[in-house]
């Protein structure tokens, strides 16, 4: 429990990816079975407890502490589990013994007295929670708290109330496990068996440490690492042999994998998260034996709704009946990986596409259609097509080589994504905040605004978005310096900078789309905003007006754009 608690704390506070992997790897390397496996399950969200409600924790704390002091402490800390963990009375000579007075002089710190009680093992906690009657829970939990130091108390309380939130993705844990194998096993290999495994993963650790065979997923609906595309840049475009490629629209939803086998049905996100519960209507429609790759979208009468609609569904673990009606989900299929147990991934894309079309015609699954192939004559026509791609549901174009096998990861030269040309506005920097990790000493998160009304004549700047990227290191240093020298106010970690008609800094902001939004003060939300240039040549009063942005929203652009797409596609 102590090693797990320490791991949790460090993962929560560590921004670096490599550092997180190192911490995870060390934990898996040094903790014994089954505790490391239980820890892995807790980190990856496979363990869910709701036996202990916050009310139970609160009642326990009130039975052991002064209610007035508890109230003040809770006000100060702001988190119930943490308050209880921190102020839980420690028995003398118990969890973290500490002598009140020692002899003066150097080297005076004596070794800690042996603890009378030992904190429970993670596995003990998990087992006891599963078998203990509700009425006996408070006594059980209190006993654990008595035996543990503060860090372990917090981890335990978070775990048993289901409030464990760690800044480590499941993927990082798999990479750490792959490292542990000494390079014999890749993270993608682990991915392919992962969803057939159960805690405490004894089989997995045996495989990784070379003590056992690769676990056989048999017919479980496991996740297959997806194939991803490279962004198409000018040099690649010049040498592109278009006739070797098939072209599709790049739809603006989320990439998903549908796995339906004799062993069950699962809907996975691109990052291997099981999102089945959030989309029951898709699961219901998966009455087949195949593994498919596609785009999850909200669709009404065959028309794709804006990404914001899908977001309503993505925010929920389980949708209500109203949500299901208002935001109906569908999948636009791109590829087929398995058909009735046959692994098709080694086949060329053109053949897989033919298999997909034939399969779709035969099975006719509900809520699923095919992502159309777009006929394109030459590179010039392709360019026109991309320029016209301005509908809310389309992000750009996908180019897939006809002979490409389905390879996990991002192999070069097989698949390209060519996003539509970004839109641009000139906005005024209003607030800045420091970044994380390597950027923690730089002001690198920028809130920018546009003018509502005329600057200098009653007009005001309205924040329209935040950007964290797009600038070079030199530009970051320049912005950081400017911000420090032009700070006019501070709100915690946020600096307000000069943003007057005659004083301020103008940023050219690129973004993929603008959508009407009632939740934003400006009435508009930007997709993927980033800084494309510093416009030090422009005074703030020459920055764009909010009206300009409103005219660039999808609803405004849609009518004309979709027309253009149709005419170009026909040509």
């Amino acid at each position, binding site marked *: 429990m102590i090693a797990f608690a320490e791991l949790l704390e460090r993962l929560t506070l560590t921004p670096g990816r490599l550092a997180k992997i190192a911490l995870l790897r060390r934990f898996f390397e040094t903790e014994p079975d089954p505790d490391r496996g239980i820890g892995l399950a807790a980190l990856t969200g496979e363990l869910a407890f709701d036996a202990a409600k916050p009310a139970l924790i609160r009642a326990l704390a009130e039975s052991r502490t*002064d209610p007035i002091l508890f109230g003040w402490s809770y006000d100060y800390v702001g988190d119930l589990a943490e308050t209880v963990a921190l102020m839980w009375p420690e028995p003398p000579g118990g969890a973290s013994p500490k002598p009140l007075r020692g002899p003066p002089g150097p080297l005076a710190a004596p070794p800690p007295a042996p603890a009378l009680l030992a904190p429970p093992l993670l596995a003990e906690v998990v087992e006891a929670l599963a078998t203990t009657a509700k009425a006996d829970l408070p006594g059980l939990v209190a006993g654990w708290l008595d035996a543990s130091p503060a860090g372990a108390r917090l981890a335990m309380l978070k775990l048993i109330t289901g409030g464990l939130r760690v800044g480590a993705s499941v993927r990082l844990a798999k990479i750490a496990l792959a490292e542990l194998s000494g390079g014999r096993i890749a993270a993608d290999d682990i991915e392919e068996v992962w969803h057939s495994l159960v805690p405490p993963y004894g089989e997995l650790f045996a495989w990784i440490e070379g003590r056992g065979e690769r676990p056989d997923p048999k017919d479980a609906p496991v996740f297959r690492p997806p194939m991803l595309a490279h962004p198409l840049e000018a040099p690649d475009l010049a040498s592109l042999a278009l006739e070797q490629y098939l072209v599709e629209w790049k739809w603006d939803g989320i990439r998903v994998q549908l796995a339906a086998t004799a062993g069950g049905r699962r809907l996975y996100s691109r990052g291997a998260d099981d999102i089945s519960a959030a989309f029951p209507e898709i699961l219901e429609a998966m009455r087949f034996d195949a593994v498919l790759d596609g785009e999850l979208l909200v669709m009404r009468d065959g028309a794709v709704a804006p990404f914001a609609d899908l977001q309503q569904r993505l925010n929920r673990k389980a949708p209500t009946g109203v949500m299901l009606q208002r935001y109906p989900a569908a999948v636009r299929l791109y590829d087929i990986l398995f058909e009735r147990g046959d692994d098709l991934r080694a086949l060329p894309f053109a053949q897989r596409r033919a298999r997909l079309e034939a399969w779709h015609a035969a099975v006719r699954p509900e809520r699923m259609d095919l992502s159309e192939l777009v006929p394109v004559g030459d590179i010039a026509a392709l360019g026109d097509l991309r320029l016209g791609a301005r509908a809310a549901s389309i992000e750009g174009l996908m180019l897939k080589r006809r002979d490409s096998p389905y390879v996990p990861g991002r192999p070069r030269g097989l698949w390209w994504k060519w996003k539509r040309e970004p839109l641009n506005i000139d906005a005024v920097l209003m607030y800045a905040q420091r970044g994380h990790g390597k950027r923690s000493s730089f002001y690198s998160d920028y809130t920018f605004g546009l003018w509502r009304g005329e600057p200098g004549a009653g007009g005001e700047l309205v924040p329209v978005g935040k950007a964290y990227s797009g600038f070079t290191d030199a530009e970051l240093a320049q912005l950081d310096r400017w911000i420090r020298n032009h700070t006019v106010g501070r709100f915690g970690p946020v600096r307000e900078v000069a943003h007057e008609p005659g004083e301020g800094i103008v940023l050219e902001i690129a973004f993929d789309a603008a959508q009407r939004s009632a939740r934003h003060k400006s009435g508009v939300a930007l997709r993927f905003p980033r800084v494309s240039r510093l416009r030090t040549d422009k005074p703030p009063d020459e920055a764009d007006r909010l009206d300009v942005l409103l005219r660039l929203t999808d609803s405004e652009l849609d009518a004309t754009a979709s027309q253009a797409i149709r005419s170009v596609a026909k040509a």
Partner: protein
Amino acid sequence: MAPHPESWLKVLPQGLYCEPGGFFIDPPAPVERAIVTHAHADHARPGHGAVLASPETLRLMAVRMGEDRVAGSRQALDYGEPLSIGEARVWLRPAGHVLGSAQVAMDWRGSRVVVSGDYKRVPDPTCLPFEPIACDVFVTEATFGLPVFRHPEPAGEVRRLLDSVALFPERTHVVGCYALGKTQRLIALLRAAGWDRPIHLHGALIPLCRAYEAMGIPLGPLLPATEAPRGTLGGAIVLAPPSAIADRWARRLAEPVTCLASGWMRVRQRAKARGVELPLVVSDHADWDELCATIEEVDAPEIWVTHGREEALIHAVTQRGRRGRALRLLGYGDEEEEAGGREPEADARPGAGPEASAGTGTDTEADLGASAGAAA
């Protein structure tokens, strides 16, 4: 019958005043005569007419503010040496807070008050331990006056730091710690844990380390961090004022692991808000248990609280059948208010280099907590 201490130890606008002795204790404003408990900036202010303090405190004050700014006249008083000032009899006892820190004990007509200044009860290799004195009124701080504050054993915190150095041997571990007391204690704890490699220091920490060494506290090999070529400090431990660890100064370090040594690090959100990757709960102030235990030990019927979270401590004191009183002294809490909503930055003043300003002004633990709290 002995007079009640309220009749002779008073809270005046300039600070806590001993009427029969004609002196103030740790006055935040310049006064004619002051006794200073320890050399932290919020207790030891420049500009007094005459200052009485322990020899170590006088020395550290001179290092911090310059010889000529300490006071018009200085008087050193060793621990345990009684001295008559006016009608009062005064003596100092170790407070265990930092080198030279003292409690001020005062007797007048059979009535005794002890002003603790800031104190802690865990052993500290860089200063003498707190010695309890039985008294009628015990005047205490309450910086960590909430039961959530319980500092773990410091050697364990240092082990966590060394463990992280072993796990990330290419990265620099930069530890924020204030210049006077915490820095030297951390160095001593590292030495006790077996770390005998050079420890690198931010420029603002060097003079006080030299002063500690000159007063007989060995700190082992120390090197200025600024003289190391950029990017060569991988695997090293670097100490710096809290304001410098996540700012421009730290950019010279190799992928630093940002650590902060402070009692406030007990609360995770405080660590998170400051971008601290490895919080080390090491404090030179008494934690909640130490505050409560000390009050029992000195066994004073009345407890006065100078600064900090006094309401919780007074509540606890009342529960135990003693009288509690909040002095609400201005000055110690002042930086907390000033720092509200602002970041404790080295470069807060335009044009001031971080080396010039960091660590020489408001770098006490109380400030740290206030600013962290404001950011949270």
